[in-house]
């Protein structure tokens, strides 16, 4: 077994996963907020006003990274769901279910900031723009996975059922995106491209990329934190979990 599979195998065992992520978590959160602040500073202060939308376009520095993140979270969920269903690895089951609420949060942020951005640009809060509509359908996919996971009593079975739904959903995401854009071109009444400012020059690009990196780091910090809690809940019968939760005293009775 070469070092990579050994590492991966070790990472799969709950106590080690718990310890490693517990040590990693503060660093991840700290670096995410640090990079985020730098990006926000770049986007809000340094970047010049857009000649067409003046300062309203600065919503892009929140809207676009969250849109990318909502898709990334779904892929992360789907990959873990696949591993969980095929190799029955408990950790990837938990990671898949932990990433669903985070993806839903980022999708909700995208929708909210998108509709707020639409108000000054188009005069109405909600526009049936192709990307916003497919983002809304993505939110329903997330709600479906979370709803199914909470509806079933037994945690392991719930995770497997919701993982299967996530896999079915992953096929659906590109199809929805394609059909919505086709639907949008069919009714090509909509005018200017809402989501991008007329042109992206470098002074706007690097804050955007920094914020995208910050959201990705934040995602891993949050998915590890949530996974650790569900792991403790699932393994509360075992000694390692009890000693991790209640201090070494409680473990041996």
């Amino acid at each position, binding site marked *: 077994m070469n070092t990579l599979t050994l590492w991966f195998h070790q990472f799969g065992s709950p106590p080690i996963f718990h310890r490693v992520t517990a040590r990693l978590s503060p660093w991840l959160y700290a670096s995410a907020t640090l990079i985020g602040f730098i990006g926000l500073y770049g986007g809000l202060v340094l970047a010049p006003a857009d000649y067409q939308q003046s300062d309203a376009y600065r919503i892009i520095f929140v809207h676009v990274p969250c849109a990318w993140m909502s898709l990334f979270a779904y892929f992360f969920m789907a990959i873990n769901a696949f591993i969980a269903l095929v190799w029955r690895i408990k950790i990837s089951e938990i990671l898949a279910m932990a990433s669903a609420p985070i993806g839903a949060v980022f999708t909700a942020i995208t929708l909210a900031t998108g509709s707020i951005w639409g108000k000054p640009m188009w005069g*109405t*809060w*909600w*526009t*049936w723009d192709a990307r916003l*509509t497919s983002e*809304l*359908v993505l939110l*329903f996919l997330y*709600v479906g996975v*979370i*709803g199914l996971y*909470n*509806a079933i009593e037994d945690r392991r079975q719930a995770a497997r059922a919701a993982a299967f739904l996530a896999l079915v959903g992953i096929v659906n995401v590109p199809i929805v995106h394609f059909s*919505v854009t086709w*639907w*949008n071109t*069919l*009714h090509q*009444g*909509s005018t200017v491209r809402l989501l991008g400012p007329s042109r992206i020059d470098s002074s706007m690009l690097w804050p955007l990329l920094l914020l995208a990196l910050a959201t990705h780091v934040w995602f891993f910090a949050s998915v590890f934190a949530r996974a650790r809690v569900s792991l403790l809940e699932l393994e509360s019968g075992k000694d390692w979990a009890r000693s991790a939760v209640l201090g070494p005293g409680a473990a041996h009775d």
Partner: protein
Amino acid sequence: MRYGTTASACAALIRRDLVLTWRRRGDALNPAMFAMIVVVMFPLALGPEPNQLARIAAGILLVAILLAGMLALDNLFRSDHEDGTLEQLVLSPHPLSLLLASRIIVHWLTTALPLIVVAPLLAEMLHLPRSVLPVLLVALALATPLLSLLGAVCVALTVGMRRSGMLLALLVLPLYVPVLIFAAGACNAAQAGLPFLAPLLWLGAALALALVLAPMACAAALRISIT
């Protein structure tokens, strides 16, 4: 607090139902999500043109919210019937119609209220003219308790059956027709600038009537179907 009086029984029932809903608060959002999906379907089918959507917005909203309310009816008695608490309720010394009335009110609070809260958001999606929104909300505030009351009678009749979902829809929807007509009538009148008070008053009268008669009918129906 003296135990065993009718007031304490209704209070205990309301408190228990609210705690139960809080324990399952994830499910409380299901009717709202269902209504949102149904509303999103229409622009996808009919096209996103704001003025076309605005004309049919009130109607779509009312139908979507009525259907969502109807779907939520099913768990009014089902879980109680399965774990035996419904039998205990029927056996209680207090007037069953009062207990069922408090049950229906809590059910309305936990299912229809989120629908009314989400209605402005859905109205915005369908570009409903801003002037019609208050009338729509008043119509919903009168129509949804009416639906819960009428629906409860039908649910009581089908409580023993296993696959009662579709049958419940067939029983309830004809009762919904007048409610829908008056609610939609009020909204369309408001949209056309005509006076819209009359249909709302009709809804209010029907609600007052149902508030008194429906719990009794529900109690009688429950006694029939509990055997």
